[in-house]
């Protein structure tokens, strides 16, 4: 059993570092006049879209309801998240050498806690963009807020907004499960 536990810990390392290659989350906007949909991808270090102009196009649409421009340069998380990810990977590498059951639990719990914090942070940004609207916006609808759902879909005026984890998010979750499993399967001392 010792072997399996260590292999799982080894696997968490690529499942962490893949975040540099795959987006964490995606928000898709659907409307009749956008037959191909508009999808925005949130990475640990950048925001992209289906095309290189997606963000500009979303911002143009958003300005009608007075939403702030989404400008990746003004989002500090995109600057320090990469270091958090590298830190996690470093702790996981350390786990290959410091073979301690409680340390394994610590890694699993830490990554889980950081993930929850990340999702909460994402929620706060969504809340801010959705509620903090320009009072001079061309389109104002009494009582209407434009916060996209954390997970799932919601109609925002003419757009159906669908928010879901993306490839990187799923793989990272898998890494976290592997982390906990490496603790659970850790050979107990007789």
């Amino acid at each position, binding site marked *: 059993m010792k072997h399996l536990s260590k292999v799982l810990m080894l696997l968490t390392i690529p499942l962490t570092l893949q975040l540099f290659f795959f987006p964490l989350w995606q928000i898709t906007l659907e409307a009749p006049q956008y037959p191909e949909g508009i999808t925005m991808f949130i990475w640990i270090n950048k925001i992209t879209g289906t095309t290189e*102009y997606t963000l*500009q*196009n979303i911002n*143009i649409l958003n300005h*009608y309801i007075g939403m702030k421009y989404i400008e990746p340069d003004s989002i500090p998380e995109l600057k320090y998240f990469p270091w958090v990810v590298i830190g996690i990977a470093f702790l996981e590498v350390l786990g290959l050498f410091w073979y301690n059951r409680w340390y394994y639990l610590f890694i699993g719990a830490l990554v889980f806690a950081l993930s929850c914090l990340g999702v909460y942070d994402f929620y706060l940004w969504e809340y801010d963009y959705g509620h903090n609207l320009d009072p001079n916006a*061309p*389109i104002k609808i009494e009582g209407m807020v434009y916060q996209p759902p954390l997970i799932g879909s919601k109609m925002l005026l003419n757009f159906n907004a669908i928010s879901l984890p993306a490839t990187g998010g799923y793989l990272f979750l898998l890494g976290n499960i592997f982390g906990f499993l490496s603790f659970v399967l850790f050979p107990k001392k007789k």
Partner: protein
Amino acid sequence: MKSLKISIAALIGISGLFIGCQSGGQKKAASATGSDAASSVYVAPGEYDEFYAFMSGGFSGQLSVQGLPSGRVFKVIPVFSVDAEKGYGFNEETKPMLNTSHGFIPWDDAHHPELSQTDGVPDGRWCFINGNNTPRVARIDLKTFETTEILELPNSGGNHSSPFITENSEYIVAGTRFSVPIPQRNMPINLAKGNFKGALSFITANEPGNMTIKFQILVPGFDYDLAHSGKGKSHGWTFFTTYNTEEAHTLKEAYASQNDKDYIAAVNWKKAEEYLAAGNFTEMPAEYAHNYYDERTQSATSSMLKTVKVLDPAKCPGLIYYMPCPKSPHGIDVNPTGDYIVGAGKLSADLTVHSFDKMIAAIEGKQFDGDAYGIPVLKFDAVNIGTVSSGGLGPLHTEFDDKGNAYTSFFISSEVVKWKVGTWEVLDRVPCYYSVGHLMIPGGDSKKPWGKYMVAMNKITKDRYLPTGPEMCHSAQLYDISGEKMKLILDFPTMGEPHYAQGIHADVVKPNSQKIYRLDENEHPFACKKESEARVERDGKDVHVYMTMIRSHFAPDNISGLEVGDRVYFHVTNLEQDWDTPHGFSVLGANNSELLIMPGQTETLVWEPKKEGVWPFYCTDFCSALHQEMQGYLGVGAKGQGGELKWSLGD
């Protein structure tokens, strides 16, 4: 002779009677369509047509893009005529496109579209088209569906037998329909015969921005009507039909129809290249414009060229031969293998088919029947391989399918006749409503036709549609040619008068169609790529406005300090980078047109305010929910009293 003429006249009369009989025509057309016709041309909402058709606009000077089998119109591309809708020829960027040695010419007569080819197959890069009146050729880029290059032709009196490309787009060609004094000079018209000349031009086609007359051949002063370049084994040759070998200068309808046979001019352009390389040409003084729209600067420039290289057949043996062809031939068409050259004697009943192999043998065996102004005339029997006894009258033009069949339009008997290449037997015939000119099969003049549909472009419309007063649209008819019998499946209206068309499978063109102009590649000298850089600069009477547009405002949208007598240049950049988000721009009292600016593009409108006041401008293309709000004001004072130049967006 006389009896033939009388019978033609009688037949024209009969067809006239037939046209005049409305109910008769409709009954005939209705019974000609099968019950499944509707489903075979039905393109469901949201679905695409299988083919693009590029149809010339004739006297509109433009090129329309339509879908097959639906017949729907997608775009009318301005080529030789100004188009206020798109600002073509009105905005500062495209005005130079219509420059010629006769100055700015806002109109032409566009006849024959021709798609670029690679290895004899349409490749979807460009479409070329001729301007007949003030002789020109144009290139249309099929990434943007815009006209990007126009070359004027010196020594031409009317560019009709053009562009007709060679199989690897080496050349498009241009022959003159009206021979003229070369070089031009005034002279008594009764001296035309023997003194007027024609010119056949070969123009490099596959170097955008560098459309050049590689050489011209000075030829006897006949009328050069249509052309087609050889393919496969006949690659290296181009064939031109001639009429008026009588060289009449008046009442041509009679005097130019006297000779029993006119000529097909066979030009060995590979030989021409050899003579050119050997320096066997003269550099003749000339004056003609080359206009090029550079996609980087999004602006056209016009340059005037001063010489043209001319080859004299008398000094270039083997360059050109004449093959006799009966009765003022119009169409000259080469079958997909390149073996046969089909001449359509428009005043006869039959088609004349010459063989390329026989022609080469006749040249080698010197089977000449005299000469015309020093150009050897090949013996008719030495080159002829067959005659299609059509049973129709007035053949004009032939295209081919991919199964070894040919389809010829007959103007006088108003029908299309299908015949077998090689045996020359007639297989089928269908009526046209009415009086078909050219016909088109997608790829039908190339090595690989898509033999599924055939379009007949008719010259007379009469009762085919709801009437629109004296002027009617020109009508096209679509036939299913996938089976043994041709089946009429659709009538559809066209723009202007399509003299000819080209068709191509949508898969060849559609993937390359551009969605936007990239703002980061916009090198327009007056582009303004950021709203924060929008500004107004005065330079004496000239005022340059660097304006941006994005949903749903202009920057700046208030300008004051303008004066009567100013020349205001609005350089407007569309900052959008999303597909199908153009904006328009128009100013009250502008003496030109609107601008219609695509995403990432910069265009310039000149406005010379005539009256004091505060004048509005606005977006003309319904761009967004706040489109009606996309507007601004221009403050104009009396001469010398405009005050300080100011501009703003938001208070």
